[in-house]
């Protein structure tokens, strides 16, 4: 499973309670759509750190990195390539 699908599956399962992949677009903003709140974002960061064995640094904790499936995938790709 690619990064996008893994992230999407996590969001769908934990915040939308569905496995319907069409319920969330890869560019949908989690915050604007009211899918997750500030604690939810911290949960997503925790999920990424565990799943992709990476450490999110303080200055990387900006909403742009974590506010959509595509943004997260880009961030994870950058972190794991480094």
């Amino acid at each position, binding site marked *: 499973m690619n990064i996008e699908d893994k992230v999407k599956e996590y969001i769908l399962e934990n915040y939308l309670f569905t496995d319907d992949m069409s319920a969330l677009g890869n560019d949908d903003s989690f915050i604007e759509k009211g899918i997750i709140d500030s604690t939810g974002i911290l949960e997503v960061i925790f999920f990424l750190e565990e799943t992709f064995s990476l450490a999110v640094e*303080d200055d990387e*904790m900006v909403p742009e990195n974590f506010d959509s499936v595509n943004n997260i995938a880009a961030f994870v790709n950058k972190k794991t390539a480094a």
Partner: protein
Amino acid sequence: MDILKIDEKAEVGRIADKLIDLLRNKLHRRGLVVGISGGVDSAVSTALCVEALGAKRVFGILMPEHDSSSESVSYGQLVVDKFGLDHTMENIGPTLEAIGCYRWRDEAIRKLFPEYGDDWKCKIAIAGQRKGTINHFNLVVQSPTGEISEKRMGLKEYLQVVAATNYKQRIRKTVEYFHADRLNYAVVGTPNRVEYDQGFFVKNGDGSADVKPIAHLYKTQVYALARYLGLPEEICNSTPSTDTYSMPQGQDEFYYTLPYDKMDVALWNYNHGVSAAKLAATLAIDEEHANFIYKDIEAKRSATQYHHMNPLLIEDVKIGS
């Protein structure tokens, strides 16, 4: 600041009248119970209850626990003494111990600092706020020799520490309702406007009450009433603190992005549709910071809707009005 100036005498009269009206027509209880923390909000709330009903219909409760500052009891006692209130002191430390508050909290802390012992102190500090990063939380601990260390908290540890310390506000409210039921009184909640608006309270803890007499007042106005009502100097001059963690913790360190007087001005300006540029000029900060403050006000309002929410039902159910 002039924008926050109120006519203290008129405001005290208005609140006292409304309290009587609510007790008579809505609550049908014959007095008020107030948890007195030693802070200015509960002191002013107590004084307003006394203005409304007279001291003999107000029951004060002091509820220190292991991490309370020594001032919380001594200042609380000043309030009780000033009005000659019927009151009780209930040390909730043993209850919190029995229910696991300190044990759950310390277990989470030891995931970050294994050496953390019973004689250490701790607090949580908000991090990231100003740099436009996502708000997150650092754990600050102090060893018995005074050495201070700080680490970013993982989400699980943060949630567990907050959940454990929330026991404090929830146990206090349980004690308040015991006395309210025993006396046929109603329970007073003591949030000020910024706390109420920004959701800075524990759901079913200090957020729970039958009436909240100062929820419409900015903190600056609460201090003005404290002086007008002749409350003890120590309380009128105190700095707001959460008094929840064993290390001293300012509210602006834990929750807000500004000290209380500036936070009042920011929220007033936000509520009155004043532009971020004007707020920046008023507070002598740059516009980017003012924009961030406005965004943070909106974010906290939205994130804490859950705190204000009543239980949700699947469909409407008719109840008495």
